[in-house]
């Protein structure tokens, strides 16, 4: 039984089809029941691996979130006593650190989930940093400009490291921008100066969303080519 499972595992890993494996084992005198039991044990082992990976990913993401909360709590409690330079340096250094460590884990070690989570966290810090820096330096702009810039950063990072969670974040941010922008148009329709200053950012949003959609579309599996 053990040798059947081993043979099946090896054969599957070199790309042999199920039918060929069945044929080989039947020719070697094994019964259908033994072969099916062998397949079941291999599949359950693979499923266990998938579940283990999911558990690891969940634990790591929770861990990253706790680290993030802890750091935020530390910074928040000391925020008022920090100078503008220290505040900005904290945000930038923290963001670069997360990106660097995340990249290292993803590309140079086998802990790719940890790396992806750290990069995702870095993008969240980037977004939070945009609003904090605007607050620190009293930059007067509409708040959804910050979300558009956040979305741009998420998209660029998504293409750089090919983490699809960053694209989902960008899509979510777009929906947020759209709903609040429409609300502001309805309420502030007479204050066209307030809105038209953001035409440039709207154009950027159009271009980046279009390019993202276009590039991802080009990467869709070839078997779906007929539908385009």
């Amino acid at each position, binding site marked *: 039984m053990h040798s059947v499972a081993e043979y099946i595992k090896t054969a599957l890993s070199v790309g042999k089809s199920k039918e060929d494996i069945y044929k080989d084992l039947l020719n070697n005198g094994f019964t259908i029941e033994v072969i099916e039991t062998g397949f079941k044990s291999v599949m359950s082992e693979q499923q266990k691996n998938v579940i283990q990976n999911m558990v690891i990913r969940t634990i790591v993401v929770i861990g990253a979130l706790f680290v993030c909360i802890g750091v935020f709590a530390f910074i928040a409690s000391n925020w008022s006593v920090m100078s503008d330079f220290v505040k900005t340096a904290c945000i930038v250094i923290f963001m670069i650190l997360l990106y660097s460590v995340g990249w290292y884990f993803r590309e140079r070690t086998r802990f790719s989930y940890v790396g992806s989570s750290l990069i995702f966290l870095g993008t969240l810090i980037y977004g939070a940093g945009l609003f904090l820096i605007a607050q620190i330096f009293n930059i007067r702009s509409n708040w959804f400009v910050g979300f558009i810039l956040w979305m741009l950063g998420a998209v660029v990072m998504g293409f750089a490291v090919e983490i699809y969670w960053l694209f989902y974040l960008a899509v979510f941010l*777009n929906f947020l921008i759209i709903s609040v922008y429409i609300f502001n148009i309805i309420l502030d329709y007479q204050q066209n100066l307030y809105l038209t200053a953001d*035409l440039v950012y709207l154009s950027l949003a159009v271009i980046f969303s279009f390019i993202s959609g276009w590039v991802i579309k080009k990467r869709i599996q070839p078997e779906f080519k007929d539908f385009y």
Partner: protein
Amino acid sequence: MYYLLNDIFIYAPIVLILLLFLFRSLIKKSLSIINADNFNLTLSKKDVLSQLFLFQSFVFFSLFLFVFNMKLGYPLPWRSLLLLVSVIGLVFAYGLKVVYVLIISLISLVVWWVLEVVFQIVGDSEVNRVFIFSGISFFSLIYFVVGRIHEQNIKFKRFSLVYLIFGIIYVTFVLFYFSTKAGLYNFAKQTQGTPFYYSSWVSVLLFVVLLITLFGLTFYSLVNNLIHKYEFMMVLILGLFFAVISFLPEQRIFKDHAYYYKDFYEDLLPAGFVWIIVFNIFSFLEMVGIILLGYLRKEVWLVNIGIFALFVFMIVKYFDWFYSFLYKSLFFIGAGVLLFVLGWLLEKGRNYVISNLKVESEQRFQ
């Protein structure tokens, strides 16, 4: 109020997206009733993502146009801008095969038409408005026929599903709505006043263009064998029905124009009884027609939609007609028994129709 609306607009998308994520498997299962022969609206996760981005870029572009129009002092009326955006959206959807943009463009086209005709007759409160419901129904029937035409090309198969669903849902809804008490009150109100062809020529033109497009496309599809002759008959009958109710003069449905919930049956005039019967029969036959259509076209999803619609129809009729007659306890006991019996009958009927479809397809392959 401002802050409340502001909060709603900020938090509503977040809550909605969270709910969609948490209940994604339940939503997938529910949407599988319209899984047309294992053909989905989206092909893969990358397809969903690309469609979302392209959809959002189109929405941002529309917002850009609106704001730009505002900045220039409204050279284009915003209704015309809506039409422009709808047309650009259709070109965008067909060019890049983006289903989500198609959905929003089709809806905005209908919204433009309604706003345009309402704008034409807005100063004239004596004009009846029932032709607006008919106009939207014509759009639905046109979408249905276009959906059948698109089925021939694999590149537009997903689009055909969108068109067909739009086509079926509104017509089913409007017939069903007018068959209820609230709907009949509304129908009576909408028929008050002079017929629309005595008012603005623009609204007449918009209506007639829609009518000609509907019948033209339907006959074209029949001649080229793109729709089943039974579908042709359904579209023709429904189209004529909605055309007739648009051109009717004022209908006296209730006594003394009583448009509030006093006593429905006491206030009803003979014409009102006729309309109740007409709308209920049309609604019921339309839903049965969808089931039969699913059987004839061998499309399980049509059968599922028809059965679901019929189920809702019967439950609502029960509440609509018997709520005030029976004692409440008897009413709810009856409702429970009805639900069980209906559910059993519909499931039996559905399994019978679907198993016949499967047997026929197996026989075809033997």
